[in-house]
């Protein structure tokens, strides 16, 4: 009833191909954008910087990973390494005097080149061997970061990032940093939303489904897999850089370890493979769960009188990631995004019961 399709008639092809055809959708998007822009004036800097900001950045990262996992159908076990490459490259470039906007692009390009270099395996085999080569990428990058002081400042070092500068002006307020992250997240989201309508998106789906059939109609599967990897790595690199400049302000090796890769994958799976709104949900879910669980367990412990050490609490979120991945794959393999679209479909035809697809 809210998402009525009745009464919508298109008189131009452009209108027919619009992203949000149902007026309720357009209103919702409009309101969300307004809220997003007004957030620094509504929320305190604490909420802005500790909740909203990482959520937006991680959503951008999840969307980038979704391009590989959801759209191209490959498994990427080293996304954090790609983000790390972008982060380190950008920090080095900024320290060398390159303007920040250019440094970010350079970071993204470095990540794209190295990240897609590891996709060479796409040339010869498919599927799980590609996944293994990304795992190799993660370990090589881990090793390089710990053992090459020129890049990382050594395993124990914390590499300080300079200020974020837009057009030469330093941006240090929490509102300013928030807007930068918001802008990046919106850019990635609109890219992914439009992917469906472009030749690249169609080619990716064709290659994912049956690559030799795609080759028969002229879609070069190797080229498109490589493009998917390069684009996804570019997004990952820039996201990693933005994460450092707006959130962490310094780079350490643990920020891009294999556990972080797994966290990114968990966000994609929980949110739903290939689902854009799911990426938002998945990122929020995974970011919030550790905090909620710690609070819950602490409350249970104090009420039941069982002493729980800090060490135990520290590893519990991880155990939860694993349990969540398993649970979601069993119950709803298509994640939170599918649950959302089920609800939406229900409301689309309410009070009637059948959805004709």
């Amino acid at each position, binding site marked *: 009833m809210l998402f009525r399709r009745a009464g919508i008639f298109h008189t131009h092809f452009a209108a027919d191909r619009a992203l949000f055809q149902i007026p309720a959708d357009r209103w919702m998007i409009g309101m969300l954008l307004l809220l997003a822009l007004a957030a620094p004036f509504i929320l305190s800097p604490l909420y802005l910087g500790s909740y909203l900001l990482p959520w937006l950045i991680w959503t951008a990262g999840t969307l980038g990973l979704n391009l590989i996992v959801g759209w191209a159908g490959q498994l990427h076990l080293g996304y954090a390494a790609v983000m790390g490459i972008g982060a380190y490259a950008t920090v080095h470039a900024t320290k060398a005097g390159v303007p920040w906007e250019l440094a970010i692009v350079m970071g993204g390009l470095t990540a794209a080149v190295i990240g897609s270099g590891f996709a060479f395996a796409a040339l010869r085999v498919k599927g799980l061997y590609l996944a293994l080569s990304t795992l190799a990428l993660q370990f090589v990058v881990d090793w390089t970061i710990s053992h090459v002081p020129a890049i990382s400042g050594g395993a124990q070092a914390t590499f300080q990032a300079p200020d974020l500068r837009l057009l030469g002006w330093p941006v240090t307020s929490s509102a300013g940093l928030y807007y930068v992250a918001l802008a990046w997240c919106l850019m990635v989201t609109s890219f992914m939303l439009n992917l469906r309508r472009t030749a690249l998106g169609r080619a990716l789906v064709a290659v994912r489904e049956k690559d030799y059939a795609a080759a028969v109609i002229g879609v070069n599967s190797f080229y498109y897999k490589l493009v998917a990897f390069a684009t996804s790595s570019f997004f990952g690199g820039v996201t990693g850089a933005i994460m450092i400049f707006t959130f962490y302000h310094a780079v350490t090796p643990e920020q891009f370890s294999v556990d972080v890769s797994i966290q990114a994958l968990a966000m994609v799976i929980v949110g739903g493979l290939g689902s854009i709104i799911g990426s938002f949900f998945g990122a929020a879910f995974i970011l919030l769960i550790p905090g909620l669980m710690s609070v819950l367990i602490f409350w249970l412990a104090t009420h039941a009188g069982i002493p729980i050490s800090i060490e135990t609490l520290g590893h519990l979120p991880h155990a939860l990631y694993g349990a969540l991945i398993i649970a979601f794959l*069993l119950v709803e393999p298509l994640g939170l995004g599918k649950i959302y679209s089920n609800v939406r479909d229900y409301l689309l035809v309410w009070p009637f019961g059948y959805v004709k697809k």
Partner: protein
Amino acid sequence: MDWILFFESTLNGGLIGTMYSLVAIGIVLIYKSSSVPNLAQGAMMMLGAYVVLALSKLGMPIWLAIPLGIGLMLFFGVAVERVALRRLAGQPIVMILMMTLGLEIFLRAGSLTIWGNTGQPLSLGISDSPLFLGPLLISRAHAVGAVIAVVMFGLFVLFFRTRIGVVLRAISDDYTAAWSVGISVERGVALSWAVSAGVATIAGVLWGSVQGVNQDLALLLLKGLTVAVLGGLDSIGGALLAGVLLGVVEGVASSFLDPLVGGSSRDLVDAMMLILTILVRPHGLFGRHAIERV
């Protein structure tokens, strides 16, 4: 060129390599019946070692704790199939792969939560005194591990020639066709996971006696995976040979590279071997090619 060092690294590397093969054999076993590499193999090794450790702490002598531990882990394998894999029976391989990943994270973090991260010793009664082969020094524990690995290899080669072995390979080719000829796919997958969990326990106990029982046992997954890919994901013999090969390359390369790079070059060597295998010969030394008729 220090020849003694070279031969010692080669020999010990080869022996360690056979112990890597033990990890890889579990991965190959599951791949041969489910067509998916089990990313939770390292975690199952760790769990098996912890179970045996817990049993021996309850006062059981080690020669009783190990078979009992293996038995418990057999149940664990069956439980994994029943709870997690049965629902995913028709889904794309990527989903099942992610399920094994989820299992790995859960087991590793879960054991950290319950047992903490300090390494605990597991004694198998193997003396610490090294064996001498001429002027070369060999670790006794590694030698025992190598013998066990070769024995297991022989057992499994025989196993896959039996009727049940053929059925497991059939299941990995096509679930639906297997159902259509009356094969119980559920039982086949459960069997392969149970046996793999048992092998993982043996591997975990052996490695645990060498390096202590803690989270690091699970990280042997990378070694096991590299060996499995190098040998061919569905070849048992390949896993054994590839293990020896990787062990030797690792041992020799790191004994010469470590002083140059400042330590822990083993992991880099492994990653490089993995990349090289995928580049040059993706299906490994003895693996099967995907048969696709267009």
